[in-house]
């Protein structure tokens, strides 16, 4: 049996006017066209009244092209760009709360943290909360490795945020 191919993904970065309901309009566009969003992050940008939204969605280049054009049609969307791994800095943050039964568990997690250069943000006799920063792949592999040692009690991920490398930027002219 051939392994099913991984669905291709693309990353879209938007600069949008910060009005109530804008998020709904953008997310609604994906839903309406039957495109699965795998990650969605939005918060204020460097410019007052404008937000930066970064989304990851499933689809090939044809899907991306259609989304790119549809996004451009939304009045509140000022800029649309795609970001690729070789021209962008991408980061995701995860908070991982694990159950700790004994000192051996604790030691195992700490050694994993050393390798991944994670920070422990909270520790109790029975839990440890770890902050993992990096690419989606790094977080995925940390999660799978830590699961081999201990039980994950809670996991929260931010989704990917990204900026162009160097002087290229997505901002208002």
């Amino acid at each position, binding site marked *: 049996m051939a392994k099913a191919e991984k669905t291709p993904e693309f990353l879209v970065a938007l600069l*949008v*006017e910060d009005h*109530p*309901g804008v998020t*709904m*309009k953008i997310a*609604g566009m994906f839903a*309406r066209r039957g495109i699965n969003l795998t990650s969605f992050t939005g918060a204020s940008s460097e410019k007052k009244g404008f937000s930066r939204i970064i989304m990851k969605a499933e689809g090939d280049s*044809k899907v991306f*092209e*259609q989304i790119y*054009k*549809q996004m*451009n*049609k*939304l*009045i*509140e*969307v*000022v800029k649309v760009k795609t970001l690729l791994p070789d021209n962008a800095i991408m980061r995701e943050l995860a908070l991982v709360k694990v159950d700790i039964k004994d000192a051996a568990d604790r030691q195992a997690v700490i050694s994993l943290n050393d390798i991944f250069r994670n920070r422990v943000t909270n520790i109790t006799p029975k839990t440890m909360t770890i902050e993992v920063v990096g690419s989606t792949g790094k977080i995925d592999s940390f999660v799978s490795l830590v699961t081999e040692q201990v039980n994950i009690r809670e996991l929260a991920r931010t989704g990917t945020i990204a900026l162009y490398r160097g002087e290229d930027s997505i901002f*208002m002219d």
Partner: protein
Amino acid sequence: MKDQKKKKPILTGTAIIKKVLKESGNTTLFGYPGGAIMPFFDEIFGDNKIKQILMRHEQSAGHAAEGYATASGKLGVCMTTSGPGATNLITALANAFYDSAPILAFSGQVNTSLIGNDAFQEADLIGATMAVTKHNYLVKDVRDLGRVFKEAMHIASTGRPGPVFIDLPKDIQLAECSLKEPIPEKINLVGYNPNVYSKAASRQISHALKMVMNARYPVILAGGGVSISNAYQQLTELANLLKIPVVNTIKAKGVIDDYHPYALGAIGMHGRQRSNFAVSEADVLLAIGCRFSDRITGDLDKYPGQGNAKVIHIDVDAAEIGKNVPVDLPIVADAKLALTEMNRQIRALKGKKKELKTNSWWYRWIKEMKENDGIPNMVEKGPEGGIYPEKVMYELDRIMNPRDIIVTEVGQHQMYAAHYLKFRHPRTFITSGGLGTMGFGFPAAIGAKVAKPRSEVWLIAGDGSIQMNSHEMATVKQHDIKVNMIILNNGYLGMVRQWQELFHEKRYAGTDLGFVRNGKQEYWPDFVKLGEAYGLKGRKVTDPRKLGKALQESKASKETFIIEVATEKGSNVLPMLPPGGALNTLYNREGEKKSIYDYYRRLPRTDSELKEFKFVRVNPIK
């Protein structure tokens, strides 16, 4: 006293709206009142510069605004109250969105303090209209009102036009605006710059010309965009300069004179077979302002030119280019500007360069297709005693003035009209093309008549569709609006019945509008009597020979006249393309599945084929 004179009067929200509408010349409003929009209705009450048409349903108000916009090329305005009033409008907004009609729609909303509290007649219209409008606004501050209305009008009528919806809380309508300039002179929309023309387009156009001129079988496909951008003169000029055939979508009827020697007519599922054949044989398709909807393409793998043709696509909306059909040469531009430039470039070519590579067979074929192009005059009744719809089109075509406006509902009658009637001028055929909204026609005909009071407006309806909004008979009576209503009554939802006959083994589920009671076949309503209830006159026609006279009587009438035509029950719109099938397959007039090559000779593709090719007429089906 002096001080008071100097002071500018403080404007309320509704006064700002009225001022913006008046200043922009949009003084015809289609609407329906209710609690949350009362302040605005009160504002325009007694103002003789504003024409307010009271419809009988909010959906009709939206459709009437679209009919008005389509017939006139101007913005259509409609308004409703909150909650159910506004949700009733959604179908009309969706219809206008699909057919890219410039509509400004606004509805009342509960007071801002009540929003989100599930107040009486509250509904989230921003959420509900999001998917069916070009843009929408909720105004929460009276100081934004002037700007929002100006922006909304601008967005609705520029670029690819579309409906814009504004949600207006009641307290905002009543609030006083403290701004010195409540209506800004200029608007600044950073995220909205429709690309109507760019330098890049000129270069693309010269590439396009090369492709067209080197083609053997080039075809122009004109879509609704040609009508919207008023590019009909440019289109005709292009066809004349290049001498290539023009086919059109249903939304582009009238953009080229149907009597023009290169105008082949509508394409698509119920279009002209000659047009479908032309696209099926084409090697270069120049598409202008169309969406390549599934109803015109059929099987996308075999579209166009059986999947081998090169496609040039001109559209003002970049998102339409490459959405359904892969495009070899995209041109993002307004149709009128692009065609003007294309014609300029052709005229600049000298001597022989103007000659196309195409061969004489193409012209001979086109010429033959244009012969005997009339509508069949089916004077006899059908086997079930009804009048053939073709006969109605035949008589209507005889009585119609070229400037008359034809409006249709949705169904078989719509396809008969689109297939057979000849249009000579743009904006004379108004129909629901994209969404296919039954109930669109009658209110749209009202809007069209209001926009063009001197043109005769003919509504072609089916007995199914007309019942969706037949209450508008009250509107035409009250406002003295004349519409010639032709109702093709076959007692069925004919188009669905046709599909059931062809694809569902004649199981007529839910399509028979009549019923048998106590062994007797009954059918209600009697449309002429229905008209009488509204104070309108009409005539029921059961004899095909009396049809012409009835149409004359309607034309001569000063007010709305209803002609109910006892239509042959089993008549089907044929030939048609099989759903999802390629353009070179069809159901013929007998409902048998055929290849188009049973009717047309395949045209030669290579030079050697061309040498041996003999033109043989194969019983064309047009």
